């Protein structure tokens, strides 16, 4: 009975993925008259290469540390080491990923592909925040609309609205909401704080952009997961609630001891799905920030697409996909392990 589905999956999911997997070891281009060549792991080396460089501050002739205008020690320019410096071939082409001070010296962690690294960390951050918050909120909503109340269907529909509406409208709307000058959010915050609030350019500020995206993403997709929770809620036998009622359970206890354990399978599903979707974050970025400002909203899939399509570098995009796949696979294995049935 699984055969038709399996065949389709193999043909249209596994097959293309294996192709992509193969591409990641070549220099395959989207458009090119040149033949494709096998390049081994170089795509991955390019993505994952990191190095560490520690620099001492510049000293004047007297051996005093030279201070810059702000009174901070000044260091030699990194680009002198990473660009065309025959003494440091291992750093060639690398850029600063992040840095920290160790005493007077400053340690630079360099990456061959800082954009990828940022995409990686942003994606992880996004997942870590979105997965629990979104599944939790979705469950809350599902519980709210699982009550027996007149007209509850209206609310079921309303809570689902953001999912139904095209991401284009949603992104557009939220760009207006997040507008740095007179966006609705700033206006609202100003109103709530009686004007003490300094407007923030939510999407234009590298510190807030990712969180702005996170907020909107949760808002947008929470109804989707609410529906899944809801179908899980329906499978819990009513008599269990009756038994708990009689045993004196409060609503919270009923949730804790009857509902929640009864949702185990659903919870696994939701967690897996949310994690997958969070890792696949793309549309919002594409519509709202294009990865900016300063790469603060780059994500893996967005980068995979940018490279594969816009830069016509299918091999590079595929390599990112492969890394993403391995990453998510290992996380989901861990997740499965943690949520396994304990017997």
């Amino acid at each position: 009975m699984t055969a038709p589905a399996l065949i389709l999956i193999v043909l249209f999911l596994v097959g293309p993925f294996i192709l992509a997997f193969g591409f990641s070891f070549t220099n395959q281009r989207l458009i090119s008259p040149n033949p494709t060549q096998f390049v081994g792991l170089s795509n991955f080396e390019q993505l994952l290469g990191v190095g560490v460089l520690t620099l001492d501050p510049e000293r004047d002739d007297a051996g005093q540390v030279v201070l810059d205008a702000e009174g901070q020690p000044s260091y030699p320019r990194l680009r002198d080491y990473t660009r065309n410096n025959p003494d440091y071939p291992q750093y060639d082409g690398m850029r600063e990923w992040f840095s920290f001070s160790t005493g007077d010296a400053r340690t630079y962690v360099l990456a061959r592909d800082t954009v990828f690294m940022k995409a990686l960390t942003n994606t992880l951050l996004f997942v870590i925040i979105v997965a629990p918050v979104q599944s939790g909120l979705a469950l809350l909503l599902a519980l709210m609309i699982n009550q027996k109340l007149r007209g509850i269907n209206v609310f079921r529909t309303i809570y689902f609205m953001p999912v139904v509406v095209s991401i284009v409208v949603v992104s557009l709307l939220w760009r207006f909401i997040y507008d740095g000058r007179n966006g609705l959010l700033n206006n609202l915050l100003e109103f709530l704080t009686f004007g003490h609030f300094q407007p923030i350019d939510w999407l234009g500020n590298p510190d807030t952009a990712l969180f702005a995206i996170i907020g909107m993403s949760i808002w947008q997709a929470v109804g989707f997961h609410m529906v899944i929770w809801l179908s899980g809620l329906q499978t819990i036998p009513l008599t269990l609630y009756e038994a708990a009622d009689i045993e004196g359970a409060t609503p919270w206890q009923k949730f804790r001891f009857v509902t929640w354990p009864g949702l185990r399978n659903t919870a696994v599903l939701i967690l897996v799905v949310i994690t997958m979707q969070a890792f696949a974050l793309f549309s919002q970025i594409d519509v709202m920030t294009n990865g900016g400002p300063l790469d603060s909203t780059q994500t893996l899939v967005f980068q995979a697409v940018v490279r594969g399509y816009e830069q016509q570098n299918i091999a590079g995009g595929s390599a990112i996909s492969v890394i993403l796949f391995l990453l998510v696979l290992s996380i989901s294995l861990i997740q499965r392990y943690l949520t396994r049935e304990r017997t």
Partner: protein
Amino acid sequence: MAGLSLSNLKKTYGKVEVIKDVDLEIGHGEFVVFVGPSGCGKSTLLRMIAGLEDITGGELRIGDKIVNQVQPRDRGVAMVFQSYALYPHMTVYDNVGFGLRLNKTPKDVRDRKIREAAQILQMEHLLDRKPAQLSGGQRQRVAIGRAIVRQPEVFLFDEPLSNLDAALRMDMRMEISKLHQELGATMIYVTHDQVEAMTLADKIVVLNAGVVQQVGSPLELYNRPANLFVAGFIGSPKMNMVEVSVETAGANAIDISGPAIGRLSLATEASGIVLGDKMTLGIRPHDFQQVPEGPFKGTVTLVEHLGNETMVSLKLANGEAMIAALDGDTTCAIGETVSLDFNRDKVHLFDSGGQRRG
């Protein structure tokens, strides 16, 4: 004080009236057994008392309070469900201890109580299992355990022993009885087992189609069933019913006759019985003896040896069927003709409306 008082209680599902104007007083500490045919509304009544079904009409009091609108958890009742309703994800231990955990019983007390209950229910070796790994009877015991550890004011049992074997059932019956004495709690108990009903109950309530037929002590019901329904329902095998008509009606005795029995004289208080009345004569199978020549004579159609007694089914000359419970070592073969007499002091007479007479 946790007596119960049901007045005019009604329940309808859609148009189906399942409980019809039930009036019932249950004293504090009483052991009341509900019996009645399958589907007569026993579980429904229990669930209404527990607060799991809305009450369509009438009034339900527990103690002094009207509880029609009170949440189940505030009614102070424990219940054993007919379908067990065990929490599938908890072990037996946790299932049993759940109520205690909810009311914040300290861990050691809880543990003691759970183990006590497990011992009583002979399921100490099952404490670590999940319900899915239990047999039907084992599940039922867990459900009982869950109720008894909580020691509420009112216990509701819905056929709690139906899946247990005879020996265990007897043990459990004893345990419940003991529990009742120890706790002095009010217990309401639904069962199909006559022995259970007879031995446990202070008071049996016979229900039929949502209507209370008779309320009384076990022997009262056995010896003086108020109507044909109760007469037929209480006692196993069923009371034999014979159509008769009244020939003479004296002050203390009447003569009756019927195609099956010819003419007979019975000592009974005969007020209101009128000559020519159609009546029903009831004789319990155990009140028959095999005699060389008696009022009932028939061909044996079925012999069931139960060991301590033998059930003999007869077909009388007029085609009526009759069952007699005879000695364990009675030997008679199918097809043989047997003659029976019965204990004249223990007959039951019902008028044409089915009500007991005399």
